[in-house]
């Protein structure tokens, strides 16, 4: 689009001069006209200003006057090409922070982008790697068009295809670094986009040793050919690259001759992420002459994918050369601290379109998170299209446009897998069920869900409106549940299935005539003990249905922690999700009793508490203070266990009783209950707070937050990076703080820094 603009507007690259669509027809007429006289006005205004100065001269001496006039004339001359001048500031790395300084004309110019990726021990890598990290302080610039994969070694065809996709995603993120890449075009890569790039697929589909050798030992002739022929010049470029500003204008000549080669080796053939998947990787960047080679070694696709993520974080825009720059030499060894780094999204209370879920998966991948817990339905709606029980959806969806069809779900699951993410579906129970179950009564199946009468006050029956709970004594319930589980097996092929198990209201069952009759017929009292038994009837029947549906595949159920779960649930068959507030003593009991757990402390890792005022004006179930990124960062499962008296929580050594805390703590999950969120507010509510969470689980840093300014600066950059990639993450600070890393400090940080400086 910029190429079509009249030359006069090119000097001011800030905005597209055309307004959005038909929404502003008047603007379309006026803006181009008003731009042209604007420039004339500069001169007129300046001249009149100079005249005024002459008459009412405020300057005390002629010299000053001359200086000012000269400056003004200079400004006049420069006005059009004004912002083509380089930035007035340069950055230097001081004690791990990029400090802004006015640029000295003769001095060396270091851009902020360069400083960000090279300054400090970890540059701007997020999450911080757990192994060795060495980064050179220098960068080397290249055109993204001269970056290619010269080796993608794997013995598995499927992994090869997955690598192709990962490389494409990686390439996109590099093109997105250009500030003129239109933000609206940064949409998830559709399968069609990917299909269009056949040449990619063919090239690395198999591990033909001869072919690999050929790539490795390219002749000088080949190299010259490659240099002269940017890769995308002949072939039809991929749709996203077609929009890349890097394609419209060549990089500076000095940069054009530099090649970046990426060599990937994956040794194992895993093509589905599981809890025991090895996600580690090695990344080495070496620059010799005009060749930079990034070598990635990983045992699985998932490690290799993470390596590309890290590599993308070592590359930044180069504003001088219309190019990008990569850290010249680097060595990184990395592996996650926790196996389960998850996020739960509730699509039952409000619906999220498929594209938004894909964007969510992209953004999780940018932070190396690996499990997406999909809370599909709730009492409010049932948006999953069930092939086997379509009436669930007919009655339960908000409307016909707010449905996840099987093909949508499969696409999302496959998309997630390519991003290194496994999807855990949840159709939970017995609480949180109403929408969708209405159809059965008319067909003579009785009430499948109880307490759904809106004439009853919801607060007597559940935690929130709408109320509704599965009827555990209606035998019709379980075959239907079984059918829904079969649907889940078909759509998701899941490693784990979440069964809910939270917020069960005994008051609901108590108020139900049907349940009361059942209890009196079977000569039982209306006591909480009996209600626990009812719950157990539900849970064990549901469990059996799930295992039936799995047809011999191993599917691990997850259940929310509760006193029911502690007393009735077999610790070896289930994984427990702990929603207790941090430091509640009961948390230690799970570990002491050998449960496998996922931490999800709702006072620390609940993303929904930001604006929660949906029922009335009081926030419920939220701490009085909004969990900030520091809460997400600081909440350490292992430290919490140590504090609660679990010995050697951080130790790798097996304890005397044969258990190992680190094996029992699978990881953590941040949650977003969609009471007052839908796709409009999703990204800004979860990011960048969830990035902080991601580093806690990937890196599990042991040091306290005393170095917050270092963490804060990397987090600011990570946020900025996500915005470049089309994610609407919230800013944590004014952009000023991103541009001057040492400027926005608290008193504590200031003291810590001055002490540090004094020591040096």
């Amino acid at each position, binding site marked *: 689009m910029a190429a079509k603009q009249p030359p006069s507007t090119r000097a001011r690259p*800030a905005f597209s*001069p055309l*307004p*959005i*669509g038909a929404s*502003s*027809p*008047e*603007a379309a007429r006026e*803006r181009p006209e*008003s731009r042209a006289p*604007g420039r004339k*006005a500069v001169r007129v*205004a300046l001249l009149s*200003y100079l005249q005024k100065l002459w008459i009412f001269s*405020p300057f005390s001496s002629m010299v000053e006057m001359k200086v000012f006039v000269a400056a003004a004339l200079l*400004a006049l001359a420069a*006005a059009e090409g004004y*912002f083509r001048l380089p930035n007035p500031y340069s950055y230097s790395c001081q004690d791990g922070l990029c400090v802004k300084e*006015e640029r000295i004309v003769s001095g060396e110019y270091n851009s902020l982008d360069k400083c960000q990726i090279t300054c400090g021990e970890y540059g701007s890598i997020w999450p911080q790697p757990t192994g060795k990290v060495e980064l050179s302080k220098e960068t080397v610039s290249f055109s993204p068009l001269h970056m290619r994969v010269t080796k993608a070694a794997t013995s598995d065809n499927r992994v090869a295809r997955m690598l192709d996709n990962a490389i494409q995603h990686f390439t996109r993120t590099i093109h997105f670094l250009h500030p003129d890449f239109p933000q609206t075009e940064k949409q998830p890569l559709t399968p069609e986009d990917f299909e269009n790039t056949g040449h990619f697929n063919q090239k690395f589909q198999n591990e033909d040793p001869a072919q690999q050798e050929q790539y490795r030992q390219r002749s000088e002739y080949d190299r010259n050919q490659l240099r002269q022929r940017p890769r995308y010049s002949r072939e039809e470029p991929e749709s996203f690259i077609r929009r890349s500003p890097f394609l419209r204008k060549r990089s500076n000549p000095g940069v054009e001759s530099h090649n970046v080669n990426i060599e990937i080796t994956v040794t194992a053939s895993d093509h589905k992420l599981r809890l025991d998947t090895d996600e580690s990787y090695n990344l080495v960047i070496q620059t010799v002459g005009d060749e930079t080679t990034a070598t990635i070694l990983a045992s699985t696709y998932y490690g290799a994918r993470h390596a590309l993520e890290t590599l993308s974080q070592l590359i930044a825009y180069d504003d001088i050369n219309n190019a990008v720059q990569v850290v010249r030499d680097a060595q990184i060894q990395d592996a996650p601290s926790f196996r389960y780094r998850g996020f739960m999204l509730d699509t039952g209370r*409000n619906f999220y379109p498929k594209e938004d879920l894909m964007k969510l998966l992209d953004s999780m991948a940018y932070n190396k998170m690996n499990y997406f817990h999909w809370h599909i339905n709730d009492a*409010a709606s049932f948006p999953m*299209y069930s*092939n*086997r029980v379509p*009436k669930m959806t*007919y009655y339960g969806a*908000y409307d016909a446009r*707010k449905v996840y069809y*099987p093909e949508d779900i499969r696409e999302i699951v496959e998309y997630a897998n390519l991003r290194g993410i496994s999807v855990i579906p949840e159709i939970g129970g017995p609480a949180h069920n109403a929408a969708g179950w*209405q159809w059965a009564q008319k067909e003579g199946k009785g009430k499948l869900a109880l307490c759904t009468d809106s004439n009853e006050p919801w607060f007597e029956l559940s935690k929130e*409106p*709408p109320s509704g709970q599965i009827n555990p004594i209606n035998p019709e319930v379980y075959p239907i549940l079984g059918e829904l589980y079969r649907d889940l097996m078909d759509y998701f092929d899941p490693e784990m299935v979440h069964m809910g198990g939270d917020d069960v209201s005994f008051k609901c069952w108590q108020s139900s005539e049907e349940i009361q009759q059942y209890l009196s017929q079977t000569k039982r009292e209306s006591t909480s003990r009996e209600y626990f038994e009812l719950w157990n009837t539900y849970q064990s029947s549901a469990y059996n249905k799930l295992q039936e549906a799995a047809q011999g595949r191993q599917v691990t159920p997850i259940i929310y922690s509760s006193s029911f779960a502690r007393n009735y649930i077999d610790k070896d068959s289930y994984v427990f999700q702990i929603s207790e507030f941090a430091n509640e003593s009961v948390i230690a009991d799970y570990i002491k009793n050998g449960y496998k757990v996922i931490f999800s402390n709702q006072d620390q890792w609940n993303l929904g508490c930001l*604006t929660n005022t*949906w029922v*009335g*004006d009081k*926030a419920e179930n939220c701490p009085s*203070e*909004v969990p*900030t990124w520091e809460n997400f960062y600081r909440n350490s499962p292992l430290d919490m266990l140590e504090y609660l008296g679990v010995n050697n929580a951080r130790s790798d050594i097996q304890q005397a009783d044969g258990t190992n805390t680190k094996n029992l703590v699978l990881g953590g999950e941040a949650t977003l209950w969609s*009471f*007052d*969120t839908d796709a*409009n*507010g999703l*990204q*800004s509510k979860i990011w960048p707070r969830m990035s902080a969470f991601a580093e806690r689980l990937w890196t599990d840093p042991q040091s306290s937050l005393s170095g917050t300014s270092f963490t804060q600066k990397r987090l600011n950059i990570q946020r900025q990076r996500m915005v470049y990639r089309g994610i*609407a993450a919230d*800013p*944590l600070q*004014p952009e*000023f703080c991103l541009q*001057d890393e040492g*400027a*926005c400090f608290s*008193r*504590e*940080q*200031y003291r810590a820094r001055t002490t540090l400086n004094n020591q040096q």
Partner: protein
Amino acid sequence: MRGSTTCSATCLLACVVLLIPTTSAFFSLPSPWGYKCVNSTCVKEENTGVSQARTLNFCKLTCGEVGVLWPRPTKAVVGDNVVEFIPTNVTQKTTCQQGVCSLLDQAVRIFKDNLHRHHPEYSKGWATWVGPWDPATIAHKLHLDITVEGGETRLGLNTDESYTLRVSTSGSTTTAQIIAPSYFGARHALETLTQLTEYEENRDTLMVVNDATVEDSPAFAYRGILLDTSRNFFDVKSIERTLDAMAANKLNTFHWHITDSHSFPLYLETLPKMAYYGAYSSRQVYYPADVRHLVEYGRVRGIRVLPEFDAPAHVGNGFQWGEKQGLGKLAVCVNQEPWQSYCVEPPCGQLNLANPKMYDVLGQIYNEMVELFSPIDLFHYGGDEVNLNCWNTTDEITSWMDENNFGRDADAYYNQWSVFQEKSRQLLTAANAGKEVPGILWTSHLTEEGRADQYLDPTKYIIQIWTTGTDKLIGELLEKNFRVIFSNYDHWYLDCGFGAWVGEGNNWCSPYKGWQAVYDNNPHEIAANLTGNTYTNSILGGEAALWSEQVDETSLDSRLWPRGAALAERLWTNPSHNWEPAETRLIHQRQRMVARGIMADRIQPQWCHQNEGLCYL
């Protein structure tokens, strides 16, 4: 309809393929649910085909006293039936004076576009209307008959924004008759008319209430949103969207806090170095054409774009060039550390009172701003949060104070600050070709107890209140005859409730101000509580402020809306009740904004929209 339960893994694919045709046909069946209006509430019930169940949109339009109009009109009677039409079938007749007619043409064009935006598949100025329609629908016409009596083309504090709207249907025409004393009232009437239309999902048409009478005028003359574009930058498109959403809520003032100590994103043609040194980057700059465009974009939508140049504090980055050009230091304490000693938040900076050349530059800034925003009817001077320690630790200023025998105590500095303010006012008036316009100032040390009338002339200044609604100061200002605008932070600061951006914990004005808190803030009540008098003439209105330390264009919409809509009803209607009766209408207004392309936040599960009145406390 049920799929085979014995389907094995191998035939699964076949099953899926077989099911696809049924899948797509599935939801073209009518929804199993319908709605009935019972006691002014839309009640969801199963659609048995026997009773007269309506669609949700039909019910929303016609149920209750005013349907889903937002902000609630002063007086409205809304009929209980609708007629269907296709949005391409809209005609108009306008009676107006020349300057007004061209504005009116644009307003009608926006109105028509908004009709198309009701369609769920609207995208980029276009929606597919495919029917099937019956002949009566195809023949039906919506006719606009608009009369504007006055010739005003610029919004002022005295502009009459009232209107009457009569919708009536006879035969195959629904006529919307609009009579308004000014263009601005007529524009509001078109917004109201849009709210009397909705999408009809079964027949892919629009419906309009067949019969309605609305007589309406605002409770307050000043109904504003503040956006700070200095802490973080907002691109022009995001500001356009904000103006669109403001127009949808009949808000009329976009208070543009353009600059601050953090950045100076305004390109001034005679002082280009301000942006060169002060903008975050060359792409984060408002060029003159952008500003003029936004001023006009707002005017067409009934919105005054009000410029603020905050001084003498809240300046800094952008002023660094002065010294090098031989003008001396224009600002002092710029980026000085530790910031805690010299300002309220990093980075610091304050104008250099001791440097007479500072006034030349200030005058020049005013010249350009007045020209860009012209003609201005108000100007915001900022004037908040001056840090005396900054001035008192700057040698240049202390020696200037000593040389002139001004003294060095707090009062001495306040005196000089007020001298600065008076000079600023004169410079602005000069820039405005000698025409005085009321200036707006934030509450500050100058307006503290017993000080305001000592330093400031109530006939020349309007005070914008940002302290809490219980501050005695508010009473004092009213009693001293200042005109005021309310922005008390305990209700109308939309940036509260997030993590602190320096250090730990939540930010200073936490918690988050939910829409309920925004809605319930009643300026007249505050005044009455403090003084026993509602001061209806002195209270010009109110404004919600979005300071942008922790927001930028990525999440602007969800931060502002729908809370801005809650503010709008408080200022337009000034209802005597609290938020509760407004809830279902607000949820619908939020849906409407989303349909128009505003990424407004959800405030409840969609279930509450479909099950009116059941998400009670």
